[in-house]
């Protein structure tokens, strides 16, 4: 038995080291370790060995097995390096010049399609897009929005901060924006009032990823600033959006809710269109589901951005499109949006 083993090792060592391609090595691997391969067959014979012999043979067997595997791996790398070298000999060729590209069926990401739908909807009302940076100063993400430092409401939005060590800046000065709301102070400080703007873009939070949460997500937000902007306008815009994206039956309901940057602040529920308000799993039996946060822009936001809080009123309205898409399309895991599974993306 021992001799047989050593013979296999010797034979295959030669084969392995003289192999010329990855395919050769794959074949050798199968010939050795595959079902009915040399090594595999040999191990079947162990049953018939006396106990003390089995012990020594077992050890030797494992040793030889490992050595062969190691050699195959080593030679894989050797051959790969040869292949990498041979890339030098490959040509940069673009011929034929008019190469017929394969015809595939392309798809837009679900979020892009939804964005287009909502942007078009609000463009009809005269809203214009305005995107703010993803890496943002504390000032625009928090301070200007009536969320001062050391304020407990900062705990509502766990934040990812940028390492500004090299800049010798105060830690915590720059961050990944936690909401799209950073667009309003950026726009308001330009003084270009009245404002009717919107943004559909990416935000970040310090949050572990699971089926319902993600540290990276989209928000859609509108802000209107002018004279005589009212809560009745907010109600109108809420119903306008809900009916357009969830169907005519949908309608909004306001509930008191606290957001530091608005006063009054409301949470917006939609009548559950899945059970017609009767109560189902999606709305936890209540007939309504929460869809957005909104309110009348807090006077401190005007003061912080150089506008006169006595002259202006304004409304703002924001929601998470990812969650609506999940509801509308029965998508059970938020990770589908950012993990690039073509089987998922090609459905839309």
């Amino acid at each position, binding site marked *: 038995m021992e001799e047989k083993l050593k013979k296999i090792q010797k034979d295959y060592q030669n084969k392995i080291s003289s192999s010329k391609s990855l395919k050769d090595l794959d074949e050798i691997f199968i010939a050795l370790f595959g079902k009915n391969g040399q090594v595999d067959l040999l191990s079947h014979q162990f049953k018939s060995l006396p106990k003390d012999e089995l012990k020594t043979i077992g050890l030797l067997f494992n040793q030889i097995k490992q050595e062969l595997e190691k050699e195959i791996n080593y030679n894989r790398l050797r051959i*790969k390096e040869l292949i*990498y070298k041979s*890339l030098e000999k*490959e040509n*940069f*060729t*673009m011929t034929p010049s*008019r*190469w017929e*590209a*394969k015809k*595939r*069926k*392309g*798809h837009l990401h679900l979020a*892009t399609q939804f964005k287009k739908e909502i*942007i078009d909807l609000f463009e009809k009302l005269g809203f*214009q897009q305005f995107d703010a*940076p*993803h*890496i943002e100063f504390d000032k625009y993400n928090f301070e200007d929005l009536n969320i001062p430092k*050391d304020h*407990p409401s900062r705990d*509502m939005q766990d934040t*990812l*901060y*940028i*390492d*500004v060590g*090299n800049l010798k800046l105060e830690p915590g000065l*720059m961050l990944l924006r936690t909401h799209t709301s950073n667009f309003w102070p950026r726009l308001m400080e330009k003084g270009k*009032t*009245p404002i009717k703007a919107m943004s559909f873009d*990416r935000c970040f939070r310090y*949050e572990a990823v699971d089926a319902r949460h993600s540290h*990276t997500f989209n928000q859609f937000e509108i802000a209107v600033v*002018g004279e005589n902007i*009212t*809560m*009745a*306008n907010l109600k*109108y*815009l*809420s*119903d306008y959006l809900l009916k357009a994206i969830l169907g005519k039956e949908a309608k909004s309901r306001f*509930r*008191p*809710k*606290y957001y530091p940057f608005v*006063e*009054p*602040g*409301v949470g917006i529920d939609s009548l559950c269109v899945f059970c017609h308000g009767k109560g189902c799993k999606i709305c936890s039996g209540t007939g309504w589901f929460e869809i957005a946060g909104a309110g*009348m822009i807090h006077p401190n936001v005007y003061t912080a951005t150089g506008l006169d809080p006595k002259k202006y*009123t304004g409304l703002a309205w924001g929601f998470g499109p990812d969650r609506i898409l999940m509801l509308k399309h029965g998508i059970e895991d938020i990770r589908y949006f*950012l*993990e*690039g599974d*073509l089987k998922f*993306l090609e459905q839309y």
Partner: protein
Amino acid sequence: MKVSLSWLKELVNYKLTPSQLADKLSLASIGVKEFTDDYLELDLTYNRGDLLSLRGVAREVAAITGSSLAFSSSNSYDYPSLPKTPVEIENSELSAVQCVAKIEGLKVGASPKDWIKKLADCGMRSVNNIADVTNLIMLEYGQPLHSFDALTVKDETIKVRLAKPREEITTLDGKLRKLTSDDIVLADREKPLDVAGVMGGKDTEVKQSTSTILLSASMFNPVMVRKTSNRLGLSSEASRRFQHGLTKTNLLQALTAAIKMYEDLGGKLTAINLAGDLENNPKKIILTQKKINSLLGINIDPELVESYLKKLGFTLASQGLALRAWEVTVPYWRLDVTIEEDLIEEIARMYGYDKIEGESLKDVQVEKLDQTFYNFIYDLKVSLKDVGLTEVQTYSFYSTDVLSLLDSDKQKLVKVANPISSETEYLRQSIWPNLLEVVGKNLRRGYSDIGIFEIGKAFNNINGEPKEEYRLAVALCNGSANPLQELNQIALDLSLHLEGAKLNKGAKLNKALFHPKRQMENLAEVHLRVLNKLGIEKRVAVLEINL
């Protein structure tokens, strides 16, 4: 905050089922997380610190249901003339008020059943009768109290001061806590007794043998309490209340009620000290009918305005009918109401948000914002789709797999100071590596022909300064030995779609990561070595462009 419903009924005579009450509260006051027959749990927001108490919730319930309260909010504390317990406040920034009452002749024992039920319904455990008094009072009034075993407090002196550097204390949970000079402590002449607003000390807690206690009621600097609580990772029922802010009137009411409960247990008040500034300065806000109407967009009868605010405990002095204005005095328990808009919110929720009818925006001429770029991006996406590519969106970070692949100079990447994990430590500098990862995943799922693109932001660290810009990246794996040919064709087709606009700005590609020959300015075949590292055996070509 869990609210015991049987206890709430002792304080306000509302006539609703738990489910009706939950509905009413969530539409007019505050969200309700869950309810049972025994309790309802409020989804507490930062502003409504007053609802961290049964009395606060009772006031709210009385206002929104029109029922009456079983207690009065007026203040009467009239202590007999007694010796003063020694109290020192190092600095009024740390604590505005520090009261200590000495109560003798107590006997530690089990609490009565109804106390235990009240505590349990509110989510707390019964400890013993002496400790339970402080917790019951905290739940009812929202004012945390603490009882020290008087024998363990040197000279029965309580001092409010900053912790000394390297000072330590073993807290009630048995853990040794290292303090810093940013923490407030209650201390005697020798040692810290209590991490102020967060947790009491083990050595001074009430024991079986305790007969004399020092009952402490404090108001600490909420920001400092919050920082200490965060640093120690210790959030308690008490620390939440200290952070939300306390009021002097309420503190005295709570102290008086606690002393009464101890007296009922056979205790005797023998010394007391109400140290600090006990003066209450009620806030006054001018409210006008005009502002109410202009913010809400509806007309609310001034009589209703008055009635809603009165129900909530505000007092109004009319500034004259013609002016349609009031001077409104805010009740002491509503720390969150400071401006006119806050009052308008109170009016709106009492009136009922459901009665506000939608009204379309008046046509106003707004300043034009340049929309060219947004339109360009969308058009580009459609063109990419039309040439047969599928849009993916990937995270704005480099995964650890991608990082090891690129072997890139981390100094040039934008780094997150507090990553959730190593997968969110660096922001992506290019998009194509993320697309490569997607190609790998889909090859493993059985795809053999993959053409994908992403338009999104990439982040660069320019001498320490983070910069972001929009990029287009495409990855093509078509099964051929030279996918660059087809990708080049796609790029040409695309420039026809877009009349060549803007597609000539190359994002510089790191040469070593690409095929030694098949590289163009912003178009290249990825080096097989790089692909192999991701488990990809097929050839992949990529493109990346600054937009």
